[in-house]
């Protein structure tokens, strides 16, 4: 596996090239409406300056909350579906459920990032939080109805938005801060992902243990957690709503456009 991984990574590393200067895809038209969208800056912001803006931290919080909810699902997917459908879904099918989530996670990267090109990053993130919140809140009802297919479908959509959150983040950063140091800003933003990697599993496991300790049946031990995750997404919605265009004072003076 290590050798295969090495070979594929080397192939990728040596294959990727910068396009020739001035190259554009066939049919590409230079966007002329950029200045009409206030969420897309024409200026440039350095990485050091970006973390001094409220926009960065609102986006950081939005990513944290989206990933915390999504990573919680990935963490609990296999035991959850077996406990919600005891005797119906066994370990083999639960593994298939996890695999299916991975496919939708990957599909979300393509689908939601493409949507964000059409409707904008902020609207796309708003959709993640609104739709995600509704779906999380619907999970206990779907589980109680013992509707396995609908249960799987709900989580597939949820997890597609987890992937979509990652896919649209670099473009969101580029829109807000320009391309000057967008890689470094993205690196700083991904600390939200690391924080969510700790918070998500901690939250889901402690809540489940608490529910079981209070005598709640295993099949219902995730219900309250789902409402909490829906609440987190509501907070994420507000945080995303607060993202406004970056003030001109944060732009690089030499690169500032009139």
């Amino acid at each position, binding site marked *: 596996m290590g050798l295969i991984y090495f070979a594929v990574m080397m192939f990728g590393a040596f294959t990727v090239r910068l396009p020739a200067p001035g190259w554009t895809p066939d049919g590409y038209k230079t966007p002329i409406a950029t200045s009409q969208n206030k969420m897309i800056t024409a200026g440039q912001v350095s990485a050091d300056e970006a973390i001094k803006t409220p926009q960065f931290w609102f986006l950081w919080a939005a990513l944290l909350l989206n990933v915390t909810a999504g990573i919680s699902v990935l963490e609990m997917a296999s035991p959850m579906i077996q406990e919600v459908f005891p005797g*119906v879904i066994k370990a083999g099918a*639960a593994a298939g459920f996890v695999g299916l989530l991975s496919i939708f996670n990957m599909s979300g990267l393509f689908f939601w990032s493409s949507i964000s090109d059409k409707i904008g990053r902020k609207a796309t993130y708003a959709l993640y939080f609104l739709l995600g919140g509704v779906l999380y809140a619907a999970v206990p009802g779907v589980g109680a109805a013992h509707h396995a297919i609908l249960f799987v479908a709900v989580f597939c959509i949820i997890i597609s938005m987890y992937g979509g959150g990652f896919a649209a983040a670099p473009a969101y950063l580029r829109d807000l801060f320009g391309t000057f140091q967008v890689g470094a800003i993205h690196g700083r933003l991904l600390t939200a992902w690391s924080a969510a990697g700790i918070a998500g599993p901690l939250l889901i496991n402690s809540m489940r243990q608490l529910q079981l300790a209070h005598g709640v049946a295993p099949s219902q031990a995730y219900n309250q957690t789902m409402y909490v995750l829906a609440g987190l997404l509501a907070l994420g919605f507000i945080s995303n709503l607060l993202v406004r265009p970056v003030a001109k004072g944060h732009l690089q003076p030499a690169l500032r456009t009139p």
Partner: protein
Amino acid sequence: MKKSSPLQIVISWAIVGLPLAWGVYQTVLKSLPLLRGHA
């Protein structure tokens, strides 16, 4: 401008696409019982 050769593009897609397609196929096979509502 020098374009990538069609062979290079086919090889590149195959290296990524074939393992991916195999993985997706296997995953769908394993998850079929879910779609039948029991396993």
